[in-house]
């Protein structure tokens, strides 16, 4: 049976769990590329051009890793989640970039809520390409969504409860594909945890709340994921000690939305912009001094 390749980048961090349960239910074999490592990063650099952000670069590395290991690569095209909730252009273009760069068949679906193209329709579409029956696909979709919602709810609960912790609390404003990537966010999270800081993740909060709350910072925004992110500032207001903005270079939405948020909040923050420079020293200096300041140890 045809094997589906799932690159561990960008979309994976939003839809990975749903895809896995969906394919599991249908008994469709799939392969997920490993955590980002140097080899994958180098492959990504090889296939990308100078305008692409670090996250898209690594994504292409993951696709390249999978190229000869599966029959299809799963690349969705995500346009919008309704009015004023668009995505970054990378989410729209990844599909075309992969098709034009690599010599492999792709499995593709659209998410474009303005045109009523939903995740359900998308998954059913790719299921049919893989020769599954409609009724079976609807069941698989329901199963995947149920499992996803359960996991998501418990993650949100866990993350939200950290706000009651007595430790120093830092809100990490970052996209999940950066936060949880081994070569981008992992070292930062490891450092903060080692230094006894409670990290509240902006992507693990109820996005229905945060999306709406972002209007308190600005009503003119239209990037869905950025709105979700900075809405977290409002949701956690008064309960956190500081904010870390983490983004991949060069990120279009972040350079607009995060900058705006930085000018409006009244909290200590640092802005970390990462590219594929392998040395952690510069980042460590910034983290160490930030944690020092929040803890206030040096004044004793």
């Amino acid at each position: 049976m045809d094997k589906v390749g799932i690159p561990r980048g960008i979309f994976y961090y939003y839809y990975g769990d749903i895809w896995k349960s969906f394919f599991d239910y249908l008994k469709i074999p799939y392969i997920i590329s490993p955590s980002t490592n140097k080899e994958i990063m180098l492959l990504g650099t090889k296939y990308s051009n100078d305008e692409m952000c670090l996250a898209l670069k690594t994504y292409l590395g993951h696709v390249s890793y999978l190229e000869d290991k599966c029959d299809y690569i799963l690349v969705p095209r995500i346009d919008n989640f309704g009015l004023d909730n668009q995505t970054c252009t990378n989410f729209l273009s990844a599909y075309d970039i992969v098709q034009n760069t690599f010599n492999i068949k792709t499995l593709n679906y659209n998410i474009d809520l303005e045109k009523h193209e939903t995740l359900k329709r998308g998954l059913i579409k790719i299921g049919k390409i893989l020769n599954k029956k409609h009724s079976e696909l609807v069941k698989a979709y329901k199963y995947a969504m149920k499992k996803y919602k359960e996991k998501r709810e418990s993650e949100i609960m866990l993350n939200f409860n950290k706000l009651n912790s007595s430790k120093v609390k830092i809100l990490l404003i970052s996209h999940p594909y950066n936060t949880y990537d081994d070569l981008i966010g992992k070292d930062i999270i490891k450092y903060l945890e080692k230094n006894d800081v409670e990290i509240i993740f902006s992507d693990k909060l109820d996005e229905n709340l945060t999306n709406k709350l972002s209007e308190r910072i600005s009503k003119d925004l239209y990037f869905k994921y950025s709105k979700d992110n900075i809405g977290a500032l409002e949701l956690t207001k008064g309960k956190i000690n500081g904010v870390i903005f983490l983004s991949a270079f060069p990120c279009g939405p972040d350079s607009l939305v995060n900058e705006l948020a930085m000018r409006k909040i009244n909290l200590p923050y640092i802005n970390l912009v990462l590219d594929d420079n392998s040395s952690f020293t510069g980042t460590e200096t910034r983290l160490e001094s930030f944690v020092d300041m929040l803890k206030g140890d040096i004044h004793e």
Partner: protein
Amino acid sequence: MRNCYLGVDIGSISTKGVIIDEENNIITSCYIWTEGNPVKAVRNLIRNIKEEIPEDCVIKGIGTTGSARKLIGLMLKANIVKNEITAHAVGTLTFYPNVRTILEIGGQDSKIILIRNGIITNYAMNTLCAAGTGSFLSSQAKRLGLDVNEFGKYALKSKNPVKIAARCTVFAESDLVHKAQVGYPKEDIVAGLCKSIVLNYLNNVGKGKKIEAPIIFQGGVSKNEGVVKYFKEVLNEDIIVDKNSHLMGAIGIAVLARKNKVGKTYSLELSNVKFDTKAMECTRCSNNCELLKIYRNNELVDSWGSKCGKY
């Protein structure tokens, strides 16, 4: 016998050392270029300091800061290793307890520290790009055939600083070349450069921060009179530059070494200490971590860079 504390600040461009006593008086200090070799620079620094230190002084604590703090911390067996933001703030607060804003421009980093009631409340540092810092000034000074030490005085001669793009070093440099080629006088270009440093700093590092007096300007670039002049002009406030402004990080870390002393006595004899580093790429897994192993007298004292923690 007097108890003394050594603070060493190893920056990308210069290495600073200072010895203070229990009352934070500076006994001796030294400022030399790092020249890309922090270990060698620190050996020279310690040799200079040893010659000048009075005989009745005993070193009771050593602290290191700056970008090579970890490496030199191992070499000197320091009792405290701290980042430069903390060190600068502590150093400045020791002499200026009322300060509200610290502007700092070093060789590769620039930062702003806001202090209210003697407590750091906010700070910002440049992103990893070194635009508008000392290394940019010194490379441009070389290009113009000037010594970086006389750069500031040269800028003061100008009445009409040229406009130079401030956002990015690469653009600034091409702007500078064009201005020179169409015939602008050198002092106007130099002054324009100093002004661009100030504007770049306020746009990139100081954005959105409330800069309130008293303002203290420090770091190597604070020795440049041109930059100081334009800070005064643009901010419309008085700018304090301490005579030891280039040493504040070293003083701060010496103060922290005093506060964190462990009761040990340290020797400044380094000539019999062998200190080596070896770089290698680990091939155990696909991460291919760049490992750096540190040897003190042929004994492995630390290794860095491993993601899995096996080393």
